[in-house]
């Protein structure tokens, strides 16, 4: 019983740190993109190869980065987080 609270507190802190970092990363990527759109339209209109502008490429990458960040979180949660939760639960019983 005494052992439970510190273990849970460590886990909660780790989860919070990761959640906040990933949220900040998503905000930085998305608002970085929006501010580029607002402040440097000619740059995003640069044609990299026929049919592909820098803006289209970056826009698609924002969507891919959302998938990537979720993948990072799920990988951590499915392994480390779930394992720790299971071991804390076992101790409680």
């Amino acid at each position, binding site marked *: 019983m005494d052992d439970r609270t510190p273990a849970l507190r460590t886990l909660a802190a780790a*989860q919070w740190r990761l959640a906040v970092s990933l949220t900040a990363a998503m905000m930085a990527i998305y*608002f970085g993109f929006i*501010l580029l759109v607002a402040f440097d339209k000619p740059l995003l209109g640069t044609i990299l190869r026929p*049919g592909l502008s820098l*803006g289209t490429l970056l826009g698609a990458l924002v969507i891919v980065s*959302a998938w990537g960040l979720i993948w990072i979180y799920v990988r951590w949660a499915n392994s480390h987080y779930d394992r720790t*939760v299971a071991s804390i639960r076992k101790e409680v019983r």
Partner: protein
Amino acid sequence: MSGSVGQPHLVAVLFFFGFIAVTLGITWWAARHTLSTEHFYAAGRRVTGLQNGLALAGDYMSAASFLGIAGLVSLSGFDGLIYSIGFLVGWPIVMFLIAEPLRNLGRYTFADVVAFRLRQAPVRIAGAFGTLAVVAFYLIAQMVGAGNLIKLLFGLSYETAVVIVGMVMMAYVLFGGMIATTWVQIVKAVLLLGGAFLLAFLVLLRFGWSPLALFDAAAARYGAQVLAPGQLVSDPWDAVSLGLALMFGTAGLPHILMRFYTVPDARTARTSVSYATAFIGFFYLLTFILGFGAMVLVGQDAIRAVDRGGNMAAPLLAEAVGGTGFLGFIAAVAFATILAVVAGLTLSGAAALSHDLWVNVVRRGAAPEHEQLRVARLATLLLGALSIALGIAFKGQNVAYMVGLAFAIAASANFPALVLSVFWRQFTTRGAQASMLVGTLSALGLIWLSPAVQIRILGRPSAPFPLSNPGLVTIPLAFLAGVAVSLLMPEKDAHERFAEVEQRVHLGA
């Protein structure tokens, strides 16, 4: 080429009646399994991760995103992409901060979570107020959109369309509750994803499987500026404000939050967000292909000739690449999309009225099961009738700003209170009340004073508040109100019970 849009087409009508028949069949089956409030609000908590992922995608991909964004891309190219990205980036936030704590702390509504360690009545009244404001504006936008679209697609009168959508949606929710609503969402999501995929497939077939060849053809015909940012984002503050509302509003939409109660545990909630984000992102990438496909294969003049806003771009494209049969299919999919979204919204509004206000405020948490179910169904009837009335009352009005407003209220009224209640020990009842009321009222007030209402609707020369979406001001304001009031008026009980919250968030009930 545009000859068939707007006429009651046999294939469209057949597909449409097919969809109604199948979904009412599902509702009949679901009604026999809806025996308790746990079934009515949460589908018995037996929905799988993949099923809930599809249902979340179904709840989120409205006709506005299918027809509206494809149309926006077809008329202005790159600018349409900015919108689709804004609608996607909220999902990682749902994953990191909301989905798992919500599943572990609440039962039926998001107010369950906020009220967990606080005093029930004040928190639930404020929570229901915010929820109903979001649901009302979202419903108006959907109903008016439904009336206009169905008029364009099938040639039915506006009022007939609104009444049909309202009645069928009420049948789903009233008899089949969350079980029927979930399966209607799944059927709709599969149809919408399948239809958009097939349409994109037929477009790319003509461009040697290369999206770049398609974009290049668009640039050759309409100039390279269709691949560059245009007029949509001219004021950076406006863009950031809308972006904040879209990002954090997704994590505060009551009909989305309610879906996390339909899965058995937090891990499944996590899995379902992964699926939902994959489906929604894929769908928005497809709409980009559809928009450019319509720009090249239908032509901007032909799209504008049918609807000035471009909403008919995707149906016109379907006719151009797949004939009138395919047009009928896409038209029926669009109708199904509206029906499903409206059903999800109504169910979440009914939960706020019956579970939060009636059961937990009026009856102080002690209402027998059969009474709870009866009140939930009465609330559904009330909201269904209200949505039909609002749909007809707002006929011919410009309601485009209402979806943005619904997101702004969700982001300001629900999201800050939710995050503070789960992660901040010092949060109190008065703080939660202040955060939710300040969020809702400031969003409503600033939208009223914004250019979207003052200039575009009331025709005044200028607006007192400069931003079209209030998110940039109201989201920080709601956080500030919650924190300041909690610190000024500490609550011993809430502070002590935080350990319980923390344990439950991570270890489950």
